[in-house]
C-alpha cells in the first residue's frame, strides 16, 4: 500500500476529504481487502478520539474569569472616560484662553480710552494670565496623578 493511499485512508476516517476523494476511496475499498482492513483501523482510532472524556472548566475558574474580565472592562471604561474628559478639558481651556484674550483686549482698550492714558500692554497682561492659569492646572494635574498612584490605580 502506498504512502499516499495510507494518507487518504486516514483522512477519510477523519472525514477530511472532499466528496470526490471520499468517493474514490470508497470505490477502492470495495475491491481491496488490505485497504479495507487498514481503513477499519483508522476508523476505530477516529471513533476513539471522538469519544475521549471531555474536561470542563470548574465553577471556581469560571467565577474567577468573570471577575477578572469585569475588573478589566471597568478599568477600560474608566480609561476611556478619562481620555474623553481630558480631551474636553483641553478643548475647554483653549476656548477659554481665546475668549479671555478677546475680553481682556476689549476691556483694556476701553479702559485706556476712558482714562486717556496708556496702561500696561494687553499682551503682557494676557501672557501673565495664561502662564498663571496653565501652571495652576499643571500643578493640580501632578497632585492628582500622585494621589491616584498612591491609591494603586493604574489609569
Amino acid at each position, binding site marked *: 500500500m502506498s504512502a499516499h493511499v*495510507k*494518507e487518504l485512508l*486516514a*483522512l477519510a*476516517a*477523519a472525514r*477530511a476529504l472532499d466528496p470526490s476523494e471520499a468517493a474514490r476511496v470508497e470505490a477502492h475499498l470495495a475491491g481491496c481487502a488490505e485497504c479495507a482492513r487498514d481503513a*477499519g*483501523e*483508522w476508523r*476505530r*482510532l*477516529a471513533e*476513539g*478520539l*471522538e*469519544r*475521549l*472524556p*471531555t*474536561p*470542563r*472548566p470548574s465553577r471556581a*475558574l*469560571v467565577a*474567577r*474569569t*468573570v471577575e*477578572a*474580565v*469585569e475588573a*478589566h*472592562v471597568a478599568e*477600560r*471604561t474608566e480609561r476611556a472616560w478619562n481620555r474623553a474628559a481630558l480631551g474636553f478639558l483641553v478643548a475647554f481651556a483653549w476656548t477659554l484662553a481665546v475668549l479671555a484674550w478677546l475680553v481682556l483686549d476689549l476691556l483694556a482698550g476701553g479702559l485706556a480710552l476712558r482714562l486717556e492714558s496708556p496702561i500696561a500692554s494687553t499682551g503682557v497682561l494676557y501672557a501673565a494670565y495664561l502662564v498663571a492659569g496653565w501652571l495652576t492646572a499643571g500643578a493640580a494635574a501632578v497632585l492628582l496623578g500622585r494621589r491616584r498612584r498612591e491609591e494603586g490605580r493604574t489609569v
Partner: protein
Amino acid sequence: MDPDRDDAARLRRGDTAGLTGLMGRHQDRLFRYLLRLVGEEAVAEDTFQQTWVQVAERIGRYDTSRPFAPWLFTVARNLALDHLRRRRPESLEEVDEPAAPAGAQGDPLAHAVARQQSARLANAVAGLAPLDREVLSLRFEEDLALPQLAQTLGVPVPTAKARLYRALARLRGRMLATAPAEDWR
C-alpha cells in the same frame, strides 16, 4: 441574529452580560482545546482566564460578519503558543514527557473513565507533541471542518490536511506500540 454577535456587540459597549453569554456557549470547548494544547491543567486554567480578558480587551477588533468561535480560538491559540514557546523554545512538534491523560487528575469520574478502554487512547494523545494534540482536538473534539481548522491554525488547507494526517499517523504508531489494533475498541 447570531447570539454570539449580539453578545460581542454588548461586550464592546462595556456590558459584561455579553461576556456571560459568550462564555456560556464556548467555555467548555475552549477549556478542552486549551487543555489538549498545553497539556497541563494549571496552565490551561491560566490561559483560559487570559483568553477571556484578551477577548474583552480586543473585542473592538472582532469582525462581527465572521463567526466568533474561530476568532476566540485564535486568541486562545496565540496565548497558549506564547506560553509553550517560553517554556520550551526549541520546538512545539516534540513530545511532552509527562503522558498522564489530560484532565484526569483528582477527578473520580475522569479516573473511572480512564480505567476504561479510552484511557489507552487518552494516554497516547497526551504523549503527542502540542501541535499534534491541537490538530486532533480541533478536528475530532471541536468538530471543525478542514477550512475552519486551517483558519484557526493560520495555515493553508493542504498544510492543515498534512498536519492532521501526520498527527493521526503518530497516534496510530503509539497505539500500535501498546496494543494490536483489534484491541483498540
